[in-house]
């Protein structure tokens, strides 16, 4: 498909990265499990709206290039038949609720308009999910990559925070290789880039990336700025990690703040939808009961009628048109600022600068409801209203600029305080004694059994799964931020206990096949994993 480019010779480039990730949550033991809603909310509010934006851009022949990381746990959930079925059930219930809301608000035009907005959007979601994509939206993202408008990169196998694994090279190698294998199975090609979980980088990690064929990754700004020797272009060009051609790209702080900042960022604007006024909490319990947790715990439904309005408890009704106008204005503002930034940088650099702007994908649509619209306006404005900058991916930049400075980036992350503290503090430091012991035991078992027969092989593979799932940085993150702590603690302990039991059975040469089968069906990520990745 030919997409005409209107860019002749931009002064510089913007690389937008959307990092899409959710921890692996799949509970076949219950028909309804609260935490699975994370996935269903993200599909409804982020992934499908983003798909819709991209597809409309393609249909309108608007040139663009966006990078998306899709983590293996997220991809595994999106391609899981049970979760797909549960999503259809979820969206059907939402549509039913939206229909009721249209009736309930029929005498109140401001609210009624918004109720109809939700009904239309939920209906569109269902149609995209079921009719267009036959319940597999990953294929749609793959198609966009094959078309050339999206570059999909991978991430650590279970989003493990790699700096905390640095003392067991096998553990790091496995997070990288299992991810690459999983990516190949899904997307039919090798990933060229990797989103390091939480941008967690430490010196030496590049060797594992290189061995797996990964040619670039991203770090927070100080990962590059504190590199040795000092990077000539700051974060506005990549550096190759010393001794390799694995490139590190640093996050630009200015473009981050304008979107992420809770004080100065766009998402806090008074016209945007207020996240915390959901009808799951606001409406009468008897009315809303069928649409929240079956035991009666109020949860977000996704239907919210108010806008942020200001720093006040009194909220005004949401006005979609005003919100969209604001999104368009903010897109223009972002473009203007990036343009000025690039003009200035281009005047002092002897090559074209690249501005790397990574965000969690779930910010767009879920937290910031108008996010996908903002992105849509931005892409169109870049294409038709200016010629100072163009979009590019890290691959594009490296292809055009194959000669780069060699540096050692600094250990860093994009978490609060810039290093490991979020995942290594009072609430979660107890994990590491166990995780490191599991890693050691996994390597020992893998090396001791180079050619395991059927049941033993299945057991060793399941041990690898339990270890990988225990390593998800999400659990430590949740413990630190204090949201669903009991769930995170339970998941961590279950995986540790499952692993230890399997390990003891292997050592004792008595494997309980019933327990093994149970684990295989419950914790079934990476069906084709080979425990030898730890040998």
């Amino acid at each position, binding site marked *: 498909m030919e997409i005409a480019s209107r860019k002749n010779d931009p002064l510089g480039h913007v690389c937008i990265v959307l990092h899409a990730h959710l921890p692996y949550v799949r509970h076949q033991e219950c028909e309804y499990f609260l935490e699975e809603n994370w996935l269903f909310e993200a599909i409804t509010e982020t992934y499908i709206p983003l798909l819709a934006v991209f597809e409309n851009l393609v249909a309108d022949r608007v040139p663009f290039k966006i990078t998306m990381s899709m983590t293996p746990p997220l991809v595994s959930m999106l391609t899981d038949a049970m979760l797909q079925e549960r999503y259809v059930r979820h969206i059907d219930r939402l549509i039913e609720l939206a229909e009721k809301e249209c009736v309930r608000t029929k005498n109140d035009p401001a609210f009624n308009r918004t109720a109809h907005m939700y009904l239309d959007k939920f209906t569109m979601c269902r149609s995209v999910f079921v009719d267009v994509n036959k319940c597999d939206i990953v294929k749609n993202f793959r198609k966009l990559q094959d078309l050339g408008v999206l570059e999909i990169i991978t991430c650590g196998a279970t989003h493990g925070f790699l700096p905390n694994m640095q003392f067991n090279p096998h553990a790091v190698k496995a997070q990288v290789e299992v991810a690459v294998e999983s990516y190949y199975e899904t997307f039919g090609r090798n990933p060229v880039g990797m989103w390091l979980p939480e941008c967690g980088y430490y010196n030496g990690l590049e060797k594992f990336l290189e061995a797996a064929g990964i040619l670039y990754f991203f770090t927070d700004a100080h990962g590059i700025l504190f590199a040795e*020797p000092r990077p000539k272009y700051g974060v506005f060009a990549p550096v190759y990690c010393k001794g390799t051609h694995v490139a590190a790209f640093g996050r630009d702080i200015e473009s981050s703040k304008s979107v992420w900042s*809770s004080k100065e960022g766009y998402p806090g604007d008074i016209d945007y939808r207020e996240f915390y006024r959901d009808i799951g909490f606001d409406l009468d319990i008897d009315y809303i009961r069928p649409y929240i947790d079956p035991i009666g715990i109020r949860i977000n439904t996704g239907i919210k009628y108010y806008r942020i309005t200001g720093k006040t408890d009194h909220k005004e009704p949401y006005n979609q048109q005003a919100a969209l106008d604001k999104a368009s204005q903010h897109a223009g503002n972002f473009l203007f600022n990036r343009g000025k930034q690039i003009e200035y940088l281009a005047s002092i650099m002897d090559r074209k600068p690249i501005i790397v702007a990574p965000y969690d994908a779930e910010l767009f649509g879920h937290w910031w409801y108008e996010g996908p619209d903002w992105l849509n306006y931005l892409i169109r404005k870049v294409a038709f209203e200016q010629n100072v900058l163009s979009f590019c991916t890290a691959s594009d930049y490296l292809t055009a600029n194959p000669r780069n400075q060699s540096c050692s980036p600094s*250990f860093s992350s994009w978490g609060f305080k810039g290093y490991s503290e979020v995942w290594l503090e009072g609430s979660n430091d107890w994990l590491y004694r166990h995780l490191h012991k599991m890693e050691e035991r996994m390597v020992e078992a893998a090396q001791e059994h180079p050619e395991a027969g059927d049941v033993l092989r299945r057991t060793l593979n399941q041990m690898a799964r339990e270890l990988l799932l225990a390593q998800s940085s999400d659990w430590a993150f949740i413990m630190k931020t204090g949201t669903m702590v009991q769930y995170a603690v339970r998941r961590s302990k279950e995986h540790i206990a499952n692993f230890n039991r399997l390990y003891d059975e292997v050592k004792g040469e008595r494997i309980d096949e019933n327990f093994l089968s149970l684990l295989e069906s419950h914790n079934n990520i990476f069906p084709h994993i080979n425990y030898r990745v730890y040998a």
Partner: protein
Amino acid sequence: MQRVKKPVVTAVRRPGPIPPQQDRQFFGAGFSIAAKPAKGPKYFFSTEIPDKYNETYLRALPRDPVWLFAYWEVSGETVELLRRHVGEDVFNKSKWVLRVLDVTDLVYNGSNAWRQTDIDLAPYATTWYVKVWEADRSYMLQVGIVTPDSRFFSAVNSNAAQMPRNTVSAVLDEEWTTASTDELIRLSGFPTGKMLGASQNSSEFSTVQAAGGLASGSGSGSMS
């Protein structure tokens, strides 16, 4: 509509999959009495994990430029060895310490650390956050006893932990290198054979003919 009190939101970035709100005290109950269990038996996986492993180990994990996290265990056997080595009486009068050593750019031989300090350990302590002197240096830890006559006996040594920088590097000499043709071809979005696994070699370009030769990027609004 009834109004629910709005919670204070403190999260700045990475809000996570659901908002920081609503204490999930009900969670345990919620799971065990989930409204509609699937057909067949429910199974609850055990969450029993050991407090300790009855082995001797000490790990130093760098957390940020000047803090590292230490965790350890000294097994009964190791304690016994120490006790016999120094004698029961001396052992009982000794105190347990966490020794911090600056071992930047050297192989530690027991006495050549750039600097060192001892931190008195609370009884039964198994973790500690250590603040080191300076960033961008390498440190090692030991857990051991200090006898009344100030002799130190190590029960266990840690790994060397390299701390990150918290400033821009003072090294300005530049080195430059260029990506290879193979790497550029892969970066151009050109599909290749499987990178990992025994089956294929990474330099096989199995779809050259199908793709109609090399494309220089995708041309959709990217590099000129």
